[in-house]
């Protein structure tokens, strides 16, 4: 009796231990959380926190971003109806420029991260698309809702859109790109993105050489 009860208890414990892993394996929230935790670890790494290691830290964050973001999908959706007419070479160039643009805009912003809390509120999966709802609580106790739109690529869930305070990243860039392309041309858009990147590189060089 006691033996069978002990057996039952250990079996139950085993089930409890294994169940969450099985239920959550391959779920979008889990995959997102893993990568976000990696980024947080990089940002909190004291060795990478020094000013001299900005480059190394940025490269580390970019590498993780490449693991969880599907930049080509984001670029494609942002260019929207101007994407199909592009040649494969143009597409490749645009995805690179677009990833650089996002890095300038966002990766430099998350570097000011200082232990803000990230809460995962839930997920909804609809066919090959999913939404993971999260919330960042700032030090001023303000909640910023951030939703990640993800799509499945084989085994992996990849983020293609980020919705902050209800404003979609893709919708924002789609409007801007469309305006530039319809008022001037696609070449003009690429030229502008290139000059912005060159200016940014120039600024970075000045900033580092001053020290």
């Amino acid at each position: 009796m006691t033996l069978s009860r002990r057996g039952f208890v250990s079996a139950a414990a085993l089930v409890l231990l294994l169940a969450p892993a099985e239920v959550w394996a391959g779920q979008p929230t889990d995959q997102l959380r893993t990568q976000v935790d990696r980024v947080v670890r990089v940002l909190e790494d004291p060795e990478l926190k020094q000013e001299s290691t900005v480059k190394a830290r940025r490269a580390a964050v970019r590498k993780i971003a490449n693991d969880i973001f599907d930049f080509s999908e984001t670029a494609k959706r942002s260019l929207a109806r101007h994407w199909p007419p592009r040649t494969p070479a143009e597409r490749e160039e645009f995805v690179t420029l677009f990833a650089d643009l996002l890095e300038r805009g966002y990766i430099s912003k998350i570097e000011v991260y200082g232990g803000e809390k990230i809460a995962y509120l839930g997920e909804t999966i609809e066919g090959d698309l999913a939404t993971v709802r999260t919330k960042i609580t700032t030090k001023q106790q303000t909640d910023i809702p951030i939703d990640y739109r993800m799509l499945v690529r084989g085994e992996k869930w990849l983020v293609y859109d980020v919705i902050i305070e209800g404003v979609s990243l893709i919708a924002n860039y789609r409007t801007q790109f469309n305006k530039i392309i319809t008022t001037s041309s696609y070449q003009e858009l690429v030229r502008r993105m290139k000059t912005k990147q060159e200016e940014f590189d120039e600024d970075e060089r000045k900033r580092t050489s001053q020290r």
Partner: protein
Amino acid sequence: MERARVNIAVGLFVLIGIVALGYLSIQLGRVSFLGATGYVVTADFPSVGGLKPGSTVEIAGVEIGRVEAIGLADYQARVTLRIHAGVKLQEDAIASIKTKGLIGEKYLRISPGGSDRIIPPHGKIREVEAPVDFEELLSKYIFGKV
């Protein structure tokens, strides 16, 4: 005899008045229960804040349909749209609820996508943007900084 004719004239006049009133209310209420054309798609929003049945659906500021119904589905707002027959919506089209001007009425703006897959009739727009709640944003800036 004379009296009967007057009665008929008044009756006709009232009848015409009622018909005119009915026509006017259909026009103003933007209801089209006779011969609804085009096709229907749905979209789920976390909140529709002020969007109403009859609100316009626009691409580039041009009306391409109307909001037909708004209901609740799994604690989300499910908006049913009737889109003009000639307009095709790509699978990655984004539906955003926008305000005309700063305090104007709400409308639904669709920014067309680039996918080669088209949303079929009774399909669903999966990329949505809820309206930005200015009051909530404002209160965050007012009360947020302690």
